[in-house]
Structure formats: structure tokens, C-alpha cells
């Protein structure tokens, strides 16, 4: 066996030995698996090409939203390389995103000033910037894993953020650096003035980045990342330097984060100090956790969900950040595998005969759950309105129903829904558990996959 094959199988052994959730594709009929993968990628590509022309999304805002989601997806994928594949929790990943963005925007300014470089190549400058900084900081920050790594990333993030605010020449301080993406050599007549053209540029680079990262996970280094995550001692025992593996994946993640930053610079034409800030690091953490850290698709799912929530939920309710926090807590407590994990849990059960039973059990359980949530939402909304907008009075309209919060009725109704819903919901848990047993029991009785 060559070293590469040995590494691949060793990584797989170590990973499977720990029985983790993200068992990589098992060595079964590689050809069928590859065909399925290619089909998925092509389908995704076609979907992305068509999406901005779908009515409802073909407005400027709709396309901006899709562009934002694309950038967030690349950023989240780079973060899941660290968290999901290697188990490194970083609170300062935005540093690489932001510094890549700065590199790109400075290149754009140079192009505005006469440098004959077409715009589609600018994100590469972002990737290069991210990689350079990742190599620089990674050398010292990846010496240790675990909590020490997390804290160092926090400290580095704060330092870089403060530095960006102070170094006006490079970062423009609070105001940031601006550039014009339409002023420069136009290749094939593309001036990137319209959001549609920017969207397609983002889709192109996002697909390239996603494909590269997908490939990276399946290389020996990628497999060793999983091994280092699950059992660093054993990996070292076999002869791999855990620190070097961490450093490699860190640099790769920084590079892709920088690429996302470059796309960000092209999309917004401005980069300010908050591109490296703690809020952005926190946002990508939220995305990857909610989407599911250990699945490739989880990061994408999380990015799309969180971006949509951030942009659109604020239209419906002023308490949207509260809901986001509750959603995050629910995922951490009850579904640590994220949304992708939930879906993946059900994927092998799709074709089983007991699956409709499971769906029925879910439907029965969802009714009291909805009641409980409705009660909670009512309480939260009323409270939020009363405390943040006291001058608007006590009349509140929720879902077109007008309530007066000064009377006890809305409070009683909400409390009743909440408590009653919760008790009824609890009653349905044994039913769901039984249906789940039946569905999974039949799956294992049905023979090997």
C-alpha cells in the first residue's frame, strides 16, 4: 500500500473506530457513488444558473440576497473545514475573511487606477490574502487544539479588529476602503454594473471553492483532519504530526475564507473594519452550527438559512434576534448535528415501509408543538413591543389579530397555549419514540445497506 492509501484507510479506521456522526463515504461501489456526486453537482449548478430568473427573485434585492447567500456559503464551508472536519472551534475566523476582502478591494482600487486586470480575477487576490495571513497566524495559533486554540483565535480576532480601526492607511479605519467594480478592463463586454452579473461571478467562484473543498476532504490530508479531530493521540502514534495537519487545514480554511472576502469586496464595493469583527465571526459560527458542522451540505444550508433570517425576518418582527438565539439554543441542545444532521438522520429511512408511520407520528406531535410555539411567540412579541416601543400604546396586531395588552385576555391565552401545548406535546413523545423504533428497527432488520 502506498503511503497515501495507508493514510486514507488509517484515517477512515480511526474515524470509524470512534463512531462519529460524519462517517465519510464508505468504500462501497465507488463508481456509483461518484456518478451520484457528479449528478448532484450538475443539478446544483443548473439550479443556481436558473435561480435569479425565477419570478420573486428576479428583483435587484432578490439577486442581492442570492449573492449574499453565495458569499456566506463559501465562508461557512471554509469554517466547517475547521470546525466540522478538524474539530477546531475558532472565534476569529472573520480575520481571514476580512483581510482577504481588504486585499481584494485594494486590488480593485488599483484596477480603477489603471491596472489592466479583469474583475473576475479579483477574488483570487482575496484567496491569496487569506492564505498569506493564514500561514502567518496559523504558525502560532495551531500549536495547540481545543480550548487554547479557541481562546487564541478570540484574542487574535480582537487584536486584528483593533488594528484595522487604528491603521487608517490600509483599512480606512471606520469608514473603510471603497472601489468601483465597473471601472476597469471589461472582458467580453461584462462591466459588472448589474447585480445579475455579480451574482454569476459569485456562483462561479462559489462552485469552484465548494468543489475544491469537497475534494480536499477526500484527500489524505482531509482524512487525517478527521483523525486528528477524533483521536489526536492515536494519529500522532501512527506518525502524523497533529500540529502540521491542523496547520495545513487552517491555511486552507483561511484561503477559502479570503476568497469569500474577495467576493464580498466585489459585491459591496466597500470593506470596513467590521469585516474582521467579532460579529462576523459569530455569524459564521451560527451558520455552521445551525446547518450542521459535520456535513458538507450543512454549512451551505446554515448559510442560506441564517442569511435569509437576518435579512427577511427583521421585516416581520422586531424580536428576530431573540428568535435567532432561541433557534440556536434549540439546535445546540436538541439537534447538535444541525439541520443537515436532522435530514441525514432520516435519509436512510426514506424508503422503509414504516416511514409513513413516522411521518404520521410527527404530524400528531406537531400540533401541540405549534400551539406551544404560538403561545411563546405571542408572549415574546407582546413583551418586546411593550418594552421597546412604550409610546405605541398597548394595542398590538399579531397576524392581523388585534389585541390589547392592557387586558388580561392576551396574556391568559398565550400562557394557556404555551403550558397546555407543552403538556400535550410531552404526551406525544412516547408515540414518536415508538414510531422511530419501528422505522429504524425495520431498517436494520432489512439487511445490510
Amino acid at each position, binding site marked *: 500500500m502506498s503511503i497515501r492509501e495507508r493514510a486514507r484507510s488509517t484515517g477512515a479506521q480511526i474515524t470509524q473506530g470512534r463512531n462519529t456522526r460524519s462517517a465519510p463515504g464508505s468504500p462501497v461501489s465507488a463508481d456509483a457513488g461518484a456518478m451520484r456526486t457528479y449528478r448532484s453537482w450538475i443539478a446544483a449548478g443548473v439550479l443556481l444558473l436558473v435561480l435569479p430568473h425565477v419570478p420573486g427573485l428576479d428583483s435587484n434585492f432578490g439577486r442581492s440576497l442570492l449573492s449574499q447567500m453565495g458569499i456566506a456559503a463559501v465562508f461557512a464551508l471554509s469554517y466547517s473545514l475547521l470546525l466540522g472536519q478538524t474539530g477546531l472551534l475558532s472565534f476569529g475566523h472573520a480575520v481571514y475573511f476580512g483581510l482577504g476582502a481588504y486585499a481584494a478591494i485594494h486590488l480593485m482600487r488599483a484596477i480603477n487606477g489603471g491596472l489592466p486586470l479583469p474583475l473576475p480575477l479579483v477574488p483570487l487576490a482575496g484567496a491569496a490574502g487569506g492564505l498569506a495571513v493564514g500561514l502567518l497566524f496559523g504558525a502560532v495559533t495551531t500549536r495547540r487544539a481545543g480550548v487554547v486554540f479557541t481562546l487564541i483565535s478570540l484574542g487574535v480576532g480582537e487584536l486584528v479588529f483593533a488594528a484595522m*480601526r487604528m491603521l487608517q492607511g490600509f483599512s480606512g479605519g471606520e469608514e*473603510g476602503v471603497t472601489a468601483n467594480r465597473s471601472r476597469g478592463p471589461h472582458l467580453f463586454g461584462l462591466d459588472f454594473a448589474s447585480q445579475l452579473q455579480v451574482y454569476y461571478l459569485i456562483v462561479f467562484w462559489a462552485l469552484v471553492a465548494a468543489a475544491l473543498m469537497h475534494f480536499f476532504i477526500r484527500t489524505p490530508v482531509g482524512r487525517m483532519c478527521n483523525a486528528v479531530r477524533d483521536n489526536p493521540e492515536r494519529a500522532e502514534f501512527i506518525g502524523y504530526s497533529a500540529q502540521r495537519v491542523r496547520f495545513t487545514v487552517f491555511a486552507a480554511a483561511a484561503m477559502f475564507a479570503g476568497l469569500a472576502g474577495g467576493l464580498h469586496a466585489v459585491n459591496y464595493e466597500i470593506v470596513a473594519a467590521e469585516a474582521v469583527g467579532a460579529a462576523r465571526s459569530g455569524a459564521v459560527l451560527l451558520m455552521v452550527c445551525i446547518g450542521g458542522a459535520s456535513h458538507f451540505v450543512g454549512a451551505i444550508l446554515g448559510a442560506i438559512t441564517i442569511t435569509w433570517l437576518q435579512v427577511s425576518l427583521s421585516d416581520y418582527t422586531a424580536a428576530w434576534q431573540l428568535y435567532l438565539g432561541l433557534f440556536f439554543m434549540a439546535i445546540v441542545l436538541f439537534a447538535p448535528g444541525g439541520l443537515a444532521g436532522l435530514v441525514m438522520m432520516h435519509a436512510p429511512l426514506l424508503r422503509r415501509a414504516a416511514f409513513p408511520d413516522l411521518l404520521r407520528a410527527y404530524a400528531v406531535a406537531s400540533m401541540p408543538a405549534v400551539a406551544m410555539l404560538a403561545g411563546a411567540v405571542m408572549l415574546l412579541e407582546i413583551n418586546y413591543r411593550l418594552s421597546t416601543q412604550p*409610546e405605541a400604546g398597548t394595542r398590538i396586531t399579531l397576524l392581523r389579530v388585534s389585541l390589547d395588552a392592557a387586558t388580561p385576555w392576551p396574556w391568559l391565552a398565550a400562557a394557556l397555549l404555551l403550558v397546555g401545548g407543552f403538556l400535550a406535546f410531552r404526551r406525544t413523545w412516547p408515540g414518536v419514540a415508538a414510531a422511530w423504533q419501528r422505522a429504524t428497527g425495520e431498517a436494520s432488520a432489512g439487511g445490510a445497506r
Partner: protein
Amino acid sequence: MNKRTLQLGCLAAAALAFAAPAPAVIKVAYIDPLSGGAASAGINAQKHMAFLIDRVNAAGGLNGEKLELLSFDNKVSPQESLIVLKKALDEGARYVFQGNGSAVAHAITEAVAKHNERNPGKEVLYFNYAAIDPALTNEKCNFWHFRFDADVDMKMQALTNVIARDPKIKRVYLINQDYSFGKAVAAAAQKMLAEKRSDIKVVGDELHPLQKVQDFSPYVAKIKASGADTVITGNWSNDMLLLIKAAKDAGLKVGWYTYYGGALGTPSAIGRDGVGSVIQVSEWHNNVSPELDAVAASFRKRYPDKDDEFSYYRLMTAFDLFAAAAAKARSNDPVKVARALEGLKITTTVGEVEMRADNHQVLQPMYVSVMADNVKYDVEKTGFGFRTIARIDGKDAALPTTCRMQRPG
């Protein structure tokens, strides 16, 4: 690919919410912080916007069309502002109001210029009511931006005139936030003090990180050690509050020459110690003219919370100018309104107001006032209010400009 379909369905559902047809209203977008450290300023101004728009609508609107307010939270972030700007534009807003944070103003003015260049026929105007970095009407001026507040240099001119007249002031300490606005204040102070009173010594020029410092007592100790008798600061929101709190704790006795010392909790924080020592420069305060008492009173009736007092008189002037321009242009189209606004002169309760054609800076009367305890109206229910010590006419406030305005053809 069930997941993808589900996501697509969600996206479509969300996007359909924006597909509603719009009746004939003029949508005005308000982009300012409604959460985070500067929220108190943004929320207060938002209430003014709602109040003033209702006032305009009650008088018949602009050329028969009513105004509608759309509010967006930008968390004082330039990037977030651009995101919500796109949202605002997509919802049909043609006029954008913003004020808190010169950094945001720089981002918006550039974004609006780019949008207008790339989307002829869908132009948007940017009305800046509080971001006073001078660059916005000098080297970074553009046709679509109009500023309704005196800039840093104009306000410093007023303050230093008052300082120059006071022979007791000998040692001045400058403390400001470390970003474009704070640096502009410091630079203007140094320049104008040197011109008007060369005997005054500037004993300190401090820049502290914006909205990061929790404990200002080290800075207060430094001010004390320098022997300053006067402090000039452009600090606003939490930075002003915390500085004043620390100064009060230490019993620091100096004259405070401020841009924002009369608002947002500062008078409450300093209390009696501020009487005779806190000085602010503004376009109005509630003891300036009895004719506006009715407006202030009806605002207070609508928003009885102690934190909400009528203070953004310049927003009222902005809407007066806006209405006059729309009437003069006989149209609500932004390009026509912009052309009508240039050089427009109106008379308001406090005097003559002019929108300069050369750099889109408003010229309105300015008042330098001091905190006092024997005035008719107090601020924030503290029992202390402000009393005018100097008034500068609109046209006397004008300063030379380096703006080279590019007008649309």
C-alpha cells in the same frame, strides 16, 4: 434534492412578500442604528421622522402624494447600511435619510452615486441630517447628497468664537473619538484656536477608540494632570455619557465645549455640576423661540417617555426645505427636486435658511448655549435647560469649499 427545493420554496415565499403593488406614495427610507450602542440616538431620530412625516402628510403631502416612512437598522455599520440600502431601494424608496455615523455616511454617499450612475431613471437622493465630517461636502461631495446639519468646521467656528471672547480660558484639552469625525474635530480645534487666540495653549489632543472605552477615569486623570481649564470634545452617545460620568465622579471642574453635550442622557448624567460649564453648539434648543413650543409640546404628547424630547429641529428644517423644493419643481422626481433644492432659500421660525448650490451644505442659524437652571424649559426632566450665549446667522456660518460638483447632464 429535497433540501434544495425546500430552500427554494422558502426563498420564493419570502421574496413574494416584496411583490406587493405600491400605491402612489413617496417612500422615504430611514437608515440608522436601531439596536446596539448607538441605538438611543437612532431610535430618537426615528420618532422625529415619524412625527415630521405625519406633519407633512397632514398638510397635504408633497404635490398631493403622501410620504411613507420605511425604517432600517444599520447598527452603525457601513456594510450593513449598504445591505439595507439595497433593501430600501428595492422596496421603492427614492429618498434616504441617515445621520448617525460619518463612516456610514461615506459608504451611503458613494453607494447612492454608483446606484444613480448605473440606474438612470431610478435615481435616489441622500439626505444627511447628522453626519458632519467636512469631507462629505468638500472632497467627497456629490450631487445626490444634501447635508442638513452644520459640518464640523462650521460648528467649531461657532465654538471657538465664543472661546476667543473669554479671557479666562488659557489651557484647552481636546478629547475625541478615533475616527474621521473625531479627528476632524481635533484638527479644526487646533487650527481655529491658533488663528483666533494664539495665547491659548492646547495641553492635550487625545483620541480614544470609538465606543470601546468603558472606564474614562484614566482619561479624566490625564485631563486633570494637564491643568486644563476647558475641554473640547465631539464625543457622542455612550462615549459622551461615560466621559461625563467619570468627570463628575472625579469632581473635574472644567468648561465643556461640546457638540452633543445637550442630548441623550448627558445632562442627566452630569446634573447640577453641568450648570454654567456644559456648552453645546446646535441649530436649536428648546429655549430658543416660543413659536416652536407648540411643536415641542405635541411631540412630547405623542412620545411621553423621558428619553424622547423634541430636539432634531434640523430635521424639521430638512422637511421644510424638501417640501419647498418639491413645490418649486412641481414634481416629486428626485432629480428635479435636487435641482430645485440647490440654492433654495426659505425662512423658518429661527431665521433664513439656504441650501448651498455649490456643495449642498445647508446654511442655518447656529446657537451656542450653556446649561442653566433658570430657564423656561428643561431637558430630560432634570430641571436644567440651555440658555443661548451666542447666535450665528446662516450666511455668516458659510466656509469656503473644495467641492467640484459633477452635475448630471
